[in-house]
């Protein structure tokens, strides 16, 4: 089953046009078709609104300075709309620092992942060294081990390395990205080997071949890796919760959560913080929808 087919704009259309033609000839069906189509639209939109409504409520609460949890319905566009809540979240919490942490961790991790998974994927795709397949499939087997199961010993290892509550501890374990290696390998293996052999004849080293030829050609796989990693790391909760202890080391997801589970905080301020957390992943999703969807469908990990 090809996962990439999800992305084709309209794969079912030919079939459906065929269906429509056939059904138009059968008279009473034409009317039923129209009713069907309208009901499809209505159901689609109602469900779509249901999926989006909580987010819309969140955004409208965040620009409402008088918002509190015990008033509903609230105006979608409050008359006194302002960004006061956004100023306040930065004033009463370390949100600035938390956002920086999240961006910093994500950026460094992604750069490292691209390099490490790219090199390993290249070796597993085109290398012909002893025990290659054994090593590869051993790694792949570990895709089935959930992080929740190994988080406790992993924390102890991180602490023993002296990395607890430090950026190293928040970044280095993320660099082990087996799915990313798989992704890179599967893509590189489809690139014709002639490129490799030709460059080899010209005297290029394996690293040069990787860096100058394979890497630029594997851009779609790299893009998927980058986008998927960003969403994953930005949204991650359990791992940074375990590794960080002090407020200033937390990524935004954990930091904001401490404000909620702690002593309340103001409702409008919290929703402003929540909107800030959502914004980057939502933008990434809007602009790179194809890669997000493709990567998630492939990874089968959620």
């Amino acid at each position: 089953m090809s996962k990439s087919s999800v992305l084709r704009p309209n794969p079912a259309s030919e079939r459906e046009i065929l269906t429509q033609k056939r059904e138009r000839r059968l008279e009473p069906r034409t009317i039923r078709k129209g009713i069907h189509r309208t009901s499809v639209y209505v159901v689609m939109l109602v469900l779509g609104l249901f999926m989006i409504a909580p987010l819309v409520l969140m955004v409208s609460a965040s620009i409402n300075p008088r918002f509190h949890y015990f008033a509903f319905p609230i105006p979608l566009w409050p008359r006194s709309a302002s960004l006061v809540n956004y100023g306040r979240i930065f004033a009463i919490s370390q949100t600035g620092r938390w956002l920086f942490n999240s961006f910093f961790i994500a950026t460094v991790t992604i750069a490292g992942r691209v390099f490490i998974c790219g090199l390993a994927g290249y070796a597993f795709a085109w290398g012909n060294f002893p025990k290659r397949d054994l090593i590869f499939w051993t790694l792949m087997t570990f895709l089935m081990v959930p992080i929740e199961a190994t988080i406790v010993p992993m924390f102890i290892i991180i602490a023993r390395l002296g990395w607890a509550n430090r950026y190293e501890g928040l970044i280095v374990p993320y660099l082990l990205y087996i799915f990313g290696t798989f992704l890179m390998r599967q893509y590189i293996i489809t690139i014709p080997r002639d490129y490799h052999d030709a460059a080899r004849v010209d005297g290029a080293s394996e690293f040069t071949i990787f860096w100058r030829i394979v890497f630029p050609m594997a851009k779609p796989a790299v893009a998927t890796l980058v986008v998927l990693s960003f969403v994953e790391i930005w949204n991650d909760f359990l791992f940074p919760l375990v590794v960080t202890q002090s407020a200033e080391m937390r990524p935004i997801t954990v930091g904001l959560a401490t404000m909620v589970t702690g002593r309340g905080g103001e409702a409008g301020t919290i929703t402003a913080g929540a909107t800030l957390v959502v914004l980057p992943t939502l933008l990434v999703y809007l602009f790179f929808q194809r890669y997000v969807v493709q990567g998630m469908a492939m990874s089968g990990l959620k």
Partner: protein
Amino acid sequence: MVARKLRLFRKYGHWYLFISPLVILFLVFGLGSFLFLFVLSFMKWDLLTTAQYAGLRNYMWLVDGDFFQVALTNTLLFALMFVIPNLVISLVLALIVNQPVRGRGLIRGMYFVPVVISITVVAIIWRWLYSPSSTGPLNYMLALVGIPPQEWIASVRQALPSVAIMSLWASTGYYMLLWLAGLQSIPEEIIDAALVDGATRSERLWYVILPMLRPTWFLILLISTLGSLKLFSHAYLLTGGGPVQATHTIVLLMWKEAFIHQHMGRAAAIAIVLLVVALLLSWLMRRYFELPSGGELQ
């Protein structure tokens, strides 16, 4: 011998160099934590004093104490409340956005949005939606159709279903995606053949499409059941495990044992149970659905 080794290294060394960063990370954090987990589950250790051998005492604690049984029951109940509704709802969503109408791409995008939202934010929103007063958004909407206000996460009985409803909202879009991939892999000829034979819409779905999508069923059941067993963040952020122990899940219990009570051994024993159940489930489903191994994920 040495010369041969050297020659082998010169021939293949760079490949090993290329995979070495990944392999080192794997040995430390992957295989390392995996093996350490087993050792840890037979130890009594608070990370401050020296570790002691505890034999099977950590496992006995699981069997004898109430905590684990409550957590396991909650987790399985949650799985029941999540897996089946999710299977149906995500299928319905996929069938709807697979209809050949204009704008379905946009709608599909809308259904998928909750999937990319941080769980922290999801919980913040839903804590508000679940406000138990009559001005809570969900209670307000229930009042419109004449249903009295509910207590949601404030009530022992409704807390777990409330977590399940939030989880459904947050991840059904992802499973819809898997259904769509399956739906679009069905060859057109087969649908056309059914059409020629005069099969109605529901007959096509029930007798042609769904039987053909067995691998998709399998995948969705497997992933969503595993996801239910691993439930942590949703419960931690929405209810903190409460009220009382109503939403205590096995991973939440593990987290508390490890990082609140410093019982590393007990936490490891819980993790082992999770691991065994997860692998067993994966194997059972694979057998039941008679699938070629690993076919789906590749």
